[in-house]
């Protein structure tokens, strides 16, 4: 499954790259991108663990940039 989330207050391009690297390393993630320009996070992961992956990804993002919020719909 692949889903795209909007990010708010993602202020630094290097942080985006760091988040992306961290999320890609999460178990169950097949691909992930964090786009600084469009302020979007896209995650491709196994359906079975998708929700856990999203929660873990949110934590990764908070770790790198505490002000950045993920809009979960």
């Amino acid at each position, binding site marked *: 499954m692949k889903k*795209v989330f909007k990010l708010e*207050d993602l*202020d*630094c*391009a*290097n*942080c985006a*790259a*760091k988040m*992306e*690297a961290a999320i890609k390393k999460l178990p169950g993630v097949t691909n992930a*991108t964090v*786009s*600084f*320009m*469009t*302020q*979007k996070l*896209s995650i491709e992961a196994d359906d079975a663990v998708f929700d856990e992956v999203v929660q873990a990804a949110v934590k990764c993002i*908070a*770790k*790198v940039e*505490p*002000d950045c919020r993920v809009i979960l719909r």
Partner: protein
Amino acid sequence: MSRKQKKTLLRIIVSAVLCVAAALLPLEGVWKALAFAVPYLIIGYDVLRGAALGILHGQLLDEKFLMALATLGAFAIREYPEAAAVMLFYQIGEFFQSVAVSRSRKSIAALMDIRPDSATVLRDGEELELDPEEVALGETLVIRPGERIPLDAVVLEGSSSVDTAALTGESMPVDVAEGDRLISGSINLTGLLKARADSVYAESTVARILELVENSAEKKARVESFITRFARWYTPIVVVGALLLAIVPPLFAGNWSQWLERALIFLVVSCPCALVVSVPLSFFGGIGGASRHGILIKGASELETLAGVDTFCFDKTGTLTQGRFAVEAVHPKEVSPDELLDIAAAAESYSAHPVAQSILQAHEGDIDKSRLGEIEELAGLGIRAVVDGQSYCVGNAALMEKVGADWHDCHLPGTVIHLSRGSEYLGHIVINDSLKDDAADAIRALRELGVKRTVMLSGDKASVAAHVAGQLGIDTCLAELLPVQKVEQVEALLAQGCTLAYVGDGINDAPVLTRADVGIAMGALGSDAAIESADIVLMDDKPSRLPLALRIARKTMRIVRENIVLALGVKILILILGALGLANMWLAVFGDVGVLILAILNALRCMRAAV
């Protein structure tokens, strides 16, 4: 500017004023430290907070942490003005970056502002205003002048002109009347239209284009991945360098504070921001600028590959030619040209074949169907028809052989339709596909841009293909190819080591589009297969967009390279000068922020596609 940005601007101004005031006051010692600490905290409190959070989260090489370390270090060695200034300029750089990025984000969003807000639908005689997503296939849409066409549709009633500029970059409005197709996302200009919805929203042209554009930032270019990988190493290396510089030389030479200052210079330039921001910003700008001309590029990696393309392969029909057949010549024997055309048109009057349609189009006036007797379609050969009581054969050379007519071929290239009365040969009609107006110019422009080779891959007859290739000045012409053979030819070219772009109309060349380094689909409005399988989609069908796309891609790559060289060059220079004691903190912070601003301004040039 957003609220956050306005607040930052205010902080920058207040802090700058206080810094100047602190510098002018004749203060010494603790008082001087306090005087600079106030503007320092005003401008830097969020950086300090971020640094503290970073430490808690184990993000030690976070740029905020490094800035905090550098400035607090400067306070420690009593360089108060430098400490405040470094923080101030760092924030100015960040502010500038944030404004520039949100500007370009907005302008590109405006460029792609083609999303229809609502659709007016006629249900049970009543007009309802709905979300385009709620409209079902086949419903009747009412589109007023000035409104955006919400879904792909076919005009039922009314006539108008339609502005497709947002989709194709073509500023000339298109006239539409009953039976014409409307493309969602374009704007109805003059008349009220009633139209039948031909797609649901999710499958409409506008939804597909928006999806493509929104996903374009996901596909990162090789150079972008390279830079982020580089950034991951750059910061730790510089920080280790700073550490060594602060400890090793003073062990032998003493003078700890002097070496500490040099180490702090290292920390100031340890953030790879300029580099990391400018690369995606350039690609974003290039892709956005291209979309203004109706050139949709699926991602930065595609743009990067396009810039290096040295071989262009073309499909013929519909790509370089109009894809519409027209009668080019009528060569009768025994009868008059009009008579020949009249008989052929009558015989073909029930056929839907494009060749038959072109003959009917060339024939003036209507055909009296009562003149027709029995008609027999001969598969692969043509038609046998009774017209005015006499039996005629209309078709290819094989048909003439079969009926024993004394036929001869034409000296003109093209599709030749022969005609006989019984076995008596009456002559032939030559049908050709005409070239697109700008095809020859486009090929010439590509060559001027240094494209090494142009190849045409056609399924058509060799003589026809060679004729077209000759007219356009294409280097290599390969004809009579089945779609599978086109893939083989492309693979053979790829094996020779060239970077290859294939340009097709996407109708039956999806496999080739996928196989080429860059697949370019043209005239893609409404063609789903093309949008899916191509890397670059030309919204209109003009070959002249190709050189433009190539120029945009190359300009973007040039700007990306300029930025990498500029940012790295200046940083390395500052590092060297800093280590040798020839640079001070002022130079370091000016250099760093200056390069960031220059790189961003340079990246913004990508958006202006007037190349």
